[in-house]
């Protein structure tokens, strides 16, 4: 008997091999011309796994204090062998992951995969995206450089604009009235303990739901398949779809390796709490649309401060987005306003991001 067969027998005698792999054997994935969009969720998952592993590697040398953080990242990128690569992969993968998560979300929206019975899959996915933004915001501060320092100052100040509880949130985020070493300690804790814990649980639920309901078929196709069952096409999850997914992961890895090696992430200058903000300072691209919106809102709108209005609108938009599957009208063409909203959202986010990038 070959070693693998012996291991298989060993497991089979104890846990029942056939039963273990039964879900894998029966699981199928619908096959149609839009099937490629299904890869995005898997690629996001893959990039998340890269974040976890490179994050653990960075923890071996990183020191979370205002006096040592910048120096330790400098040490990683200049002294530790391949340290520059590990850090660069962590930064690039973070950005790619946010991008693929957004792309995954909009593909789910436009293929209408959020509809019954998958409402909670949407909700958990949306919360995961917010967590990813939290990862981005908290991780950005950790190298303790000038850009990160001011991004955190502005970002936590924006959170402070929320009526009534805002000042409390701001102090909670900063660990004091100002961005200081205490903020770095907190953000480090959020970034490596709180957010990973939450994300792991939610990711587990999200994947369990995907497993439970199977993969959604776009409504029009579902209709066709109902009336013409012989036109229905399915691909086995194992090994056919999985192997294709793995190929997509390899492609993603190639892109990541290319970006990390040829465009290594810079470190900038060490944060100085008593220096002026440098000219042309901008947040990471995924916060640019919000940043630009806040810049465009006038200081006073009717009786309200512009910032307060902006923050309240962001909160409201996020909440509506989260509950989108429940808000879709139940009638025949009820999805039309949601599709229009989706197109408007893409256009707004893309437009504001580009405007923010090139705007003065």
């Amino acid at each position, binding site marked *: 008997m070959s070693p693998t067969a012996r291991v298989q027998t060993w497991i089979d005698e104890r846990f029942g091999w056939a039963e273990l792999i039964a879900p894998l054997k029966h699981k*199928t994935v619908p096959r149609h011309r839009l099937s490629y969009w299904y890869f995005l969720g898997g690629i996001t998952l893959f990039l998340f796994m890269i974040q976890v592993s490179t994050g653990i*590697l960075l923890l071996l*040398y990183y020191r979370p204090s205002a006096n040592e953080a910048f120096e330790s990242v400098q040490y990683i990128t200049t002294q530790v*062998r391949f*340290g520059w690569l*590990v850090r660069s992969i962590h930064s690039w993968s973070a950005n790619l992951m946010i991008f693929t998560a957004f792309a995954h979300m909009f593909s789910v929206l436009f293929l209408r995969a959020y509809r019954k019975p998958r409402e909670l899959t949407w909700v958990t996915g949306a919360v995961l995206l917010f967590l990813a933004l939290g990862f981005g915001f908290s991780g950005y501060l950790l190298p303790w450089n000038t850009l990160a320092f001011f991004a955190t100052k502005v970002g936590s100040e924006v959170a402070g604009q929320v009526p009534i509880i805002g000042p409390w949130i701001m102090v909670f985020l900063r660990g004091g009235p100002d961005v200081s070493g205490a903020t770095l300690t907190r953000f480090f804790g959020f970034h490596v303990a709180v957010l990973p814990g939450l994300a792991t649980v939610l990711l587990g639920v999200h994947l369990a739901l995907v497993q439970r309901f199977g993969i959604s078929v776009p409504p029009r196709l579902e209709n066709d398949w109902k009336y013409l069952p*012989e036109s*229905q096409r399915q691909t086995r999850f194992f090994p056919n779809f999985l192997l294709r997914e793995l190929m997509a992961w390899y492609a993603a890895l190639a892109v990541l390796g290319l970006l990390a090696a040829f465009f290594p992430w810079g470190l900038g200058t060490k944060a100085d709490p008593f220096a002026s903000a440098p000219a042309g300072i901008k947040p990471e691209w995924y916060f640019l649309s919000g940043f630009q919106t806040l810049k465009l809102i006038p200081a006073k709108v009717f009786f309200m401060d512009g910032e307060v209005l902006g923050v309240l609108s962001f909160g409201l938009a996020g909440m509506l987005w989260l509950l989108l599957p429940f808000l879709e009208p139940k009638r025949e063409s009820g999805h039309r306003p949601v599709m229009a909203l989706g197109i408007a959202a893409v256009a707004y986010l893309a437009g504001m991001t580009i405007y923010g990038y090139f705007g003065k």
Partner: protein
Amino acid sequence: MSTVSTEEVLAPVRTADQSGAETSRRSLLKIFLGGGIAASLATFLYPVLRYLVPPAETNLGVDTVVAATIHELKPNSSKIFRFGSRPALLVRTAAGEYQAMSATCTHLSCTVQYRKDVQQVWCACHNGMYDLNGRNISGPPPRPLEKFQVHIQGEEIHVQRA
């Protein structure tokens, strides 16, 4: 759900005389695929393994250090000082002469101390005992402590690696 056509798992139709060629072609492809995957995994693993080993400390090369000034130690007393990145022990014997040695016990690397009562160097962790020349005289330590040279220059006591 009625007829669901499922993709066939790579299983080309073969005739009897083709199957041999088909098998060897397949095993060659398997070697290429497996080899390619193994090679790419090695390229991921190599940087990670190199990354895990920390770069050598740069401040190990210290050869001389000012351990104390001549007014600091009374006879039959001692002081722990930094020698490079490790602690070292400076003893002023009851007779008034200076002795310096590594303070890292050769047993399991605890930091040793000078005991005035027995006038010997003692390790608290496992009751190891050294004499004032650093020789291991009782308990578990397998080797003597590294001995350093002491020079007095003006008011300063310089300790130098032998």
